[in-house]
């Protein structure tokens, strides 16, 4: 069993309009020191998954089933109080928008000290020293002074560094970063990614990066899990996903990714249509209304939910098309287009 093992995780929200199936049967594993990238459009269930692992849906309206094993402890059936004890200590989270994710009324130092003292019975002075150390470690200049600043006195990149410092305060073994660079300038993005990679090596923690930016996961992830409509559609080693993707949705994601080596005049290849409603998920394969190859499945695309089946290369794909057909489509139609662009 891996350090983190998620088995058939389902997170459903009953609403007046119907049940929102935000996460619908997700399975994956992650070892210490490894990085998993979860990729997908807005509303594909990425963030809900991460909040679910942290147990932040407990006590709410969400219906959660399946298993989440963290270092031998099962979290879905565990009492909320037990999961709270792990939160911030064994598993921590870095949020997307550091300005709205930090409390505007408390200093950055106070918020880090608070996070540290929840799980460590130390004096305020000791915790403060720890906070200054952490701020220094994530690359904030003059940490002894900045510790007393308020979040609004920091720049966007500094705030995200402070947020990372807060998440790292108790040396978590599992770190989940939800769109950690989306709200940042491009130049700062690279710095933050480097920082996260360095820190991960230092702490040997398991890292989950949630993003819709394939560039980010290409940089950091060992494994990639592509989500669509609350389900995993492709899951495998990063190189496999980038060089031998087999799901039409992944092809779409790769095609819509801006790249420096492309001619600026070339158009991106957006995926047609919009993400599915999670209440009325299209029958059969959730992607079929947008899939250009849906007619190659002998009509099963709209009637039958495809299984997440392994390829001989060892990664998992959820697609009705025959393997040979997918391979030839990729080799002959998709890859050349992506490469010439």
């Amino acid at each position, binding site marked *: 069993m891996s350090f983190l093992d998620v088995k058939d995780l389902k997170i459903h929200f009953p609403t007046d309009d119907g049940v929102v199936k935000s996460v619908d049967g997700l399975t994956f594993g992650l070892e210490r020191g490894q990085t998993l990238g979860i990729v997908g459009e807005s509303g594909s269930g990425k963030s809900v998954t991460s*909040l679910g692992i*942290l147990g*932040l849906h407990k006590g709410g309206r969400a219906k959660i089933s399946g298993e989440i094993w963290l270092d031998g402890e099962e979290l879905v059936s565990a009492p909320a109080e037990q999961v*709270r*004890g*792990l*939160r*911030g*200590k064994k598993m*921590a*989270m870095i*949020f997307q*928008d550091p300005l*709205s*994710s*930090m*409390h*505007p*009324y408390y*200093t950055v130092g106070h918020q880090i000290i*608070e*996070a540290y003292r*929840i*799980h460590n019975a130390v004096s305020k002075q000791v915790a403060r020293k720890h906070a200054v150390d952490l701020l220094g470690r994530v690359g904030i200049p003059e940490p002894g002074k900045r510790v007393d600043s*308020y979040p*609004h006195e920091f720049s966007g990149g500094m705030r995200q560094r402070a947020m990372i410092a*807060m998440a790292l305060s108790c040396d978590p073994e599992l770190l989940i970063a939800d769109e950690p660079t989306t709200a940042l300038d491009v130049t700062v993005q690279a710095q933050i990614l480097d920082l996260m990679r360095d820190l991960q090596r230092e702490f040997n923690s398991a890292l989950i990066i949630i993003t819709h930016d394939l560039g980010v996961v290409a940089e950091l992830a060992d494994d990639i899990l592509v989500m669509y409509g609350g389900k995993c559609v492709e899951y495998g080693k990063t190189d496999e996903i980038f060089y031998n993707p087999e799901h039409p949705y992944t092809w779409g994601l790769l095609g819509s990714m801006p790249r420096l080596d492309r001619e600026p005049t070339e158009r991106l290849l957006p995926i047609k249509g919009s993400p599915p409603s999670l209440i009325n998920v299209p029958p059969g394969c959730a992607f079929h209304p947008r899939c250009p190859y849906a007619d190659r499945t002998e009509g099963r695309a709209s009637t039958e939910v495809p299984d997440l089946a392994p390829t001989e290369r060892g990664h998992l794909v959820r697609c009705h098309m025959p393997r040979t057909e997918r391979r030839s489509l990729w080799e002959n139609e998709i890859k050349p287009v992506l490469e010439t662009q």
Partner: protein
Amino acid sequence: MLTYIIRRLIGAIAMLIVISMVTFGIFFVVPQWAGSSPEAMASRYVGRAATPETVHLVAQKLGFYDPVIVQYGRFAKGIVAGAEYDYGAGVEQCPAPCFGYSFISGQPVWPDLLDRMPVTFSLAIGAALLWVLGGVSVGVISALRRGTFFDRLSMGTALAGVSLPIFFTGMLSLVVFSYGLGWTPPGGSWTDFTENPAQWAFNLLLPWITLAFLFAATYARLTRAGMLETMGEDYVRTARAKGLSERDVVVKHGLRAALTPILTLFGIDFGLLIGGAVLTETTYTLPGLGQFAILAIRNQDLPQVMGVVLFAACFVVVASLIVDLLYAWVDPRVRLS
């Protein structure tokens, strides 16, 4: 931060000056615009039986023939530095702050105001404690248990609280608890705190609860709305992700942010109340500033009315000044601008 405080202080002083001008204008300038002559105004000071010569003389002595600006200057000086009144038979000293003498009793206004203050203060402070604690906690619980029976019940009660006027709830409470059940003392009971604290609190219990009910309703609704908003904020999710206990999440992160608008409202409400809880004091016949104001108006006792108006205005200005300063303390982002 220091410049912020200084700016607010200057603003407050300017506000007080403007208020004194407006008050003075209403009582001395507007009547003249409306056709009231200096003699007619002076006649209020001397009584109906006075001869026209006396009235003229008094009007001269009181300076009603002087330009308005000079009259205002004299009025303002009286408040700041005290005044001297020459009645012919000798000069009378009116120490600062001098609001003049009552038409009815002939007593200086200021000591009368001071006499009334403890009653209104006691009423306001006790009620404020009750309504803030009660209103805010009900609001928090309602927000956390949104849609439950408790939420509906408390919000229904709150609606009744805002809608029911104090002379209704006050009368009802007197009829039921004082005259019916005999649990609480009848209206008009007042004991000074220094004399007997227990009796003081016992006498004020009913007015406190009635007044607090009215305000608590607003605060409960405001707190509930604020909490529903802040509990959905990203930083509350962060607080949970840190592993903070739900109680700390609610109090330190959710409520802390929801309190800011409540603080503003509280400053204004409390300031107004200190200036005289007119309806409550009248309903329970408590000898406070509100009752004083009503009597002064009924008697057309101009110096008393002006005194109580300025006094009350002062409290509102001071209260909002304190709120401004607290605001900066509570919300660090305010200090920047």
